[in-house]
């Protein structure tokens, strides 16, 4: 009897140690046309920058960065770039440091929703942050660290 109890206790302990996992797999409630890969919020106090940056992948594999609810200060020669960093401080200077970057184009507007094509072959596991970057003064207006959606 004692032995049975011991065995049962041991089994219970084993079950507790290894734990059990319940895996759920609900699908999206629609057929996915384009996948949302990553998203993040902008921060930037010196040139107050806010909004969201999201990277989508179309069914043909093309990557697009979309800015939504976006607002930054207007300025000369402002660009949208991806940088090989986890995040960027206000006014971080990328030209003096050797931060690798991918150019996505001139900022289309300092307010509103906008899309930018990402060159094919861009390694998103390396380029993890979107930066609104003033080329003329090498100033980071705002940055959005991206996380998996």
């Amino acid at each position: 009897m004692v032995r049975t109890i011991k065995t049962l206790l041991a089994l219970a302990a084993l079950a507790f140690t290894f734990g059990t996992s319940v895996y759920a797999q609900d699908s999206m409630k629609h057929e996915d046309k384009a996948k949302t890969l990553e998203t993040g919020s902008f921060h930037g106090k010196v040139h107050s920058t806010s909004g969201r940056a999201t990277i989508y992948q179309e069914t043909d594999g093309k990557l697009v960065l979309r800015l939504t609810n976006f607002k930054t200060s207007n300025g000369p020669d402002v660009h949208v770039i991806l940088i090989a960093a986890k995040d960027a401080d206000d006014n971080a200077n990328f030209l003096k440091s050797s931060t690798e970057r991918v150019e996505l184009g001139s900022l289309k507007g300092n307010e509103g929703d906008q899309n930018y094509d990402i060159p094919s072959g861009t390694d998103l596991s390396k380029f993890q942050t979107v930066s609104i970057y003033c080329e003329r003064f090498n100033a980071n207006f705002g940055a959005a660290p991206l996380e998996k959606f």
Partner: protein
Amino acid sequence: MNAHVGSWLSGRKWILVAVGLPILVSAWWAFRPEKLWTNQKVSEPSPFASSTDPQPLDTGRLEGKAHQTSGRATIYRTPDRKQYLRLTDFSTSNGPDVHVVLAPSDDKNLSQEIVTGLDSIELGSLKGNQGDQNYDLPASVDLQKYNAAVIYCERFHAVFGVARLEQF
């Protein structure tokens, strides 16, 4: 004498203009001061917008509290105005009587692991401690107020994980 002074002055003015104007122009080009007062607003449509797809409203990453919890919580709205919470990339520890609830993110209880009384909206029992899962929201939830998704163990009043939701 007068004529001489006049021509000397006008010569100097000419130099001032010749030197000053390019400086002014290049200073304007470099700083574009008028941009301080002007805005350039764009409104491009989403390249994938489809009125038949659920639209993400709010999203946030889950942070572990009493137990290691990770993943993303996103609230979607379907075209017929129904709302649901979707967990993706999700993992927490298994436990007894674990629920998914919405709570105000500024609730002081959420900074603790064990809570005394959480002002919350029940979304249902946790379907699985791993994997993608959807939870329907009751109609007319105030998402401005209840802006955090919480993985909550009712039995021990333990907050497994919290996701503070921000506008998508």
